[in-house]
């Protein structure tokens, strides 16, 4: 049984999240401020923490800083603060994910699952295979042509697979539409159109929890596409 601690000063939000998580078969502990969360974390065997930032007594940032002193469990920030700077701060001090309010409950659940999988399964994944390419939770086995995200298998068309493989092989490098086209189709791009862009969108819809806020396949607008180095 996986134990998840949900911490928010808004009781209704905690209750709603609890309902969704219970449906997925998790056991849920509830806390309404940072101090409670820390106490519960010490008392119970918690595998994942969802925590709000703006809370009375001890806010999410400081609670996370304290928790990170002794624990490495996945922490997902849940906050009304949607600025880039807030997200960067949250991720930098030790959170694994950042979900802005108001959130889509399904997306939250998906992120919980994804984080748990990475924490429990991928942590001990130790494969020495030249044909294995990974980027965070994204894993491509070029021998079996199999793509998994946080351990879950994803089905891609051959072109989508090839595009993704190209990008994963060159993590961090930005490929323009023309470059992708020339690499995949092996012919000169004359007035390349939006074909590649459509494929990319399809890949994103398959591997990303929220395609509009991608974790792996990022769009560099006006320049091209890349897989983030993680």
């Amino acid at each position, binding site marked *: 049984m996986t134990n998840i601690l949900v911490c928010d000063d*808004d009781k209704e939000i905690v209750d709603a999240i609890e309902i969704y998580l219970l449906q997925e078969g998790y056991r849920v502990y509830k806390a309404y401020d940072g101090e409670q969360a820390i106490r519960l974390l010490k008392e119970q065997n918690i595998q994942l923490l969802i925590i709000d930032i703006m809370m009375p007594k001890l806010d999410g940032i400081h609670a996370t800083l304290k928790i990170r002193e002794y624990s490495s469990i996945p922490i997902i920030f849940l906050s009304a603060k949607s600025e880039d700077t807030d997200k960067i701060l949250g991720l930098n001090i030790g959170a694994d994910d950042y979900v802005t309010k108001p*959130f889509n409950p399904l997306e939250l659940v998906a992120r919980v699952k994804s984080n748990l999988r990475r924490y429990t399964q991928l942590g001990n994944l130790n494969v020495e295979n030249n044909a294995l390419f990974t980027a965070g939770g994204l894993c491509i086995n070029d021998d079996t042509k199999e793509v998994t995200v946080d351990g879950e298998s994803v089905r891609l068309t051959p072109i989508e697979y090839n595009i993704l493989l190209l990008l994963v092989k060159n993590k961090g490098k930005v490929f323009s539409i023309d470059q992708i086209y020339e690499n995949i189709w092996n012919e000169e791009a004359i007035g390349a159109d*939006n074909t590649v862009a459509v494929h990319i969108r399809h890949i994103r819809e398959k591997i990303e929890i929220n395609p509009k806020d991608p974790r792996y396949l990022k769009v560099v607008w006006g320049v091209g596409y890349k897989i983030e180095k993680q």
Partner: protein
Amino acid sequence: MDDQRIQDDNRKTEQKKKSKKGRTFLHVLQHIALVTAVVLAVTVLAGSYLSLPSRKGVERYSLIGEDRSAAFEDSRLFNHLLGNNISDVICYGAIRSQMETEGVFDPKKEIDITAFAGRYGELPQEYITARYYLDDLLKWAQAGLEYEDVWMSGEEVNRFLSSGRTLTKLDPGNSGAKYLTSDLTGATQVVDVSGNLLDPSDLEREDVQENILKNRHRTVDGKNIENFVSSWEEYHSLCDNLSASVNDLYINYNNYLDYKDYFDAGDSNIVYLISKTIGGKTEVYTNMENSTGTASQLEKELKKRCDKYIYYDVPRMEFETNTMIEESTLRYLLNGYEYAYPEETKVMIGVDSSYSAMDSFTQARDGFGNFVPYLWQYLSGAVICILIYLLLLMLLTRQEGVVYRRDTGERAIALQPEDHIPTEPMILAGILLLGGSLYGISKAVNMLWQSVESGFLIALAGASALLVSLIFSFFYYSLVRRIKAQILWRGSLLRRMAKAARRWILYFFRNSTLILRVWVPLGVFVLVNGGLVLLIFCLAMDQKWLWFPVLLILAALDGFVGNVLYRSALARQRVLEGIELIREGNLSHKVAEDGMFGEDLALAKAVNSIGESVKNAVETSMKDERLKADLITNVSHDIKTPLTSIINYVDLIKRQNVNDPKIREYIEVLDVKSQRLKQLTDDLVEASKISSGNIVLQWEKINLVELLNQTIGEFSEKFEEKALFPVLRAPKGSVFIEADSRRIWRVIENLFNNILKYALQGTRVYIDLGFYEDEQKQKLVMLSIKNISAQPLKVSPEELTERFIRGDESRTTEGSGLGLSIAKNLTEAQKGAFEIVMDGDLFKVNLIFPLLEGE
């Protein structure tokens, strides 16, 4: 509370009074210090010199350098005085030997004139002389020796001059003896040499005109000079001896009287005892009252009376003293009067330890005792006083005029009435008064230095010092107060004059027409210049050098005018540059006003004040915008939390299998509206941030073709849903601009979302990318997005980009209404232009960016 304040005030006032009293006390102390220092210094100066009576008059002695630990008797002064007195005693003794017999003045003392006249030398064995009584010679000296020219025939001469010479022979036993020996009875024998022993020719004398002495007195044996000689040569020689003796004796007689007074017992502390023995006869000179005892008794008594003495026994070469006088000195003195002191001479001179007589020794002892032991005290006292004075000067300079306002406790400078006198006359008066009094004092000191009592001199110096100190303090502290109150320049006549001149000039410039303002100075300048040039020519004609300084003056004048013109031009240029900079948006720019004057200064000030107000207005509006953005951000945070619950629970209700279609419809409405609310809050925050300039852009090289392809790819399915057909018409290759990747995407995304919402279904959407050049030959990129509106366009393009304004005013459709506003503001933030063109149902948006060339 009030009581407390009153008490505080009282305390402050008291303190103020105290501090004022304290300061007055310090001022008085300062004067006292200076006066004391001067008094001490003058005391040292006056006391360091002693004016002591001596036989020759008043003599001055310096006490500087005396050992202050030594007794007066061991001082240089004492020994100096003693030396002088010894010299006088020796001299007196010699004179006494001429005037006295057995220690008493003897008018009938016989004087051998040849021996006397030659007393410093050695006498020949035989010589011609005459003997007169002392009183006769002195009387003769008073009356004066008289001569007359007489014509004599040979016979008369024969009758006048003796036919033989009278020679005086010294006893053979007295060979090598001197004048002294001639004084002894029986030491000489008189021999008349008869005429026949002479050369016969001697008796046949010629007629002559001769200078003959009038015989006022006769010799002891009733003769005259001519009775002793047989030739004119001998006659004149003897006359000369007589004349020398008369003169010397007369002088010595006067000295004798002086010395007698000087050394009389009771008038002098000098006690002397001189005994000399000539030919077995001992004479004793002394000023001891009891002079009857034997020599050794007298010596003992002298030693008893005098702690300090000298004893010199010439024949035994015994010299004894407890003073600094050396034997050689005494020997030298005695040798000077060799004729008066025979080999057998004993000298003993002492200073009476009781100092009973008011003579130079007593005065010297008093002066010495008053001064030497205290010299260092005086000097250090003076130095300390000077130091105190300087210290007080510093302290008071710092404190001068400082007061603290009773109500606020603020530091302020209190001015005195004299501080309002203009600076220059004040300084001038100070210099004149101070200089005048110093000059007067120095004159007075020079005049009085020698002649007045030192006490008076010291009092005078003290009074002068007080006067100078008062004058100095008065002017000095006034200056200090002025400097502190910063009215030194403000209170000066020079400034008043400068101000008046300036006012006049400004008055002239303000109240005259432009023509007058330009032409009058120019006219004056040309006239002066011309005049000076003319003057130079005239001077160069006849004066060789005078033209040069005039040329220098001319050059200086022209240089000055040039400088003024240059500075004016410079000022205008600065003002123009400033206006240009402000116009370009550098609102914090200030035109530097330094060095400007007149109209230029007014201009610069005006420009600066305009710039300042614009800057303030812009800053205020920016601040307002930022506050608004912050407010909106905070409100949106507060909205988001309840919105989260709404969205979550609507979703949860949807998951309950609700069968009632009505309820399902209601839930759908809730779902859509809550999602819209979410979008609205996000857009609101973003719009307010962009318009308040609260975003940081990350500039990148953006390929617009790539961007459009990416965007169309993203939107392809949505377009298909709405049956819209995007048509991209772009040049081949890449079109680069500089922009922020995510922000430019946001612009395009908003525009596409707008199209999705409002475009007529089944139409094409044209996306055109092209270049053109503007007036400045800058290459621009224009991106046009055109679509056909589903609804008639009723609003103006301006209204469309205003916040919360949308094409349809009913506000029932989806969207926040901020899309176009955000797109426009973001475009402008990225140095682009955003325009909307509407033509019937055609809706067109043009985005214009500068082309990034080079690749």
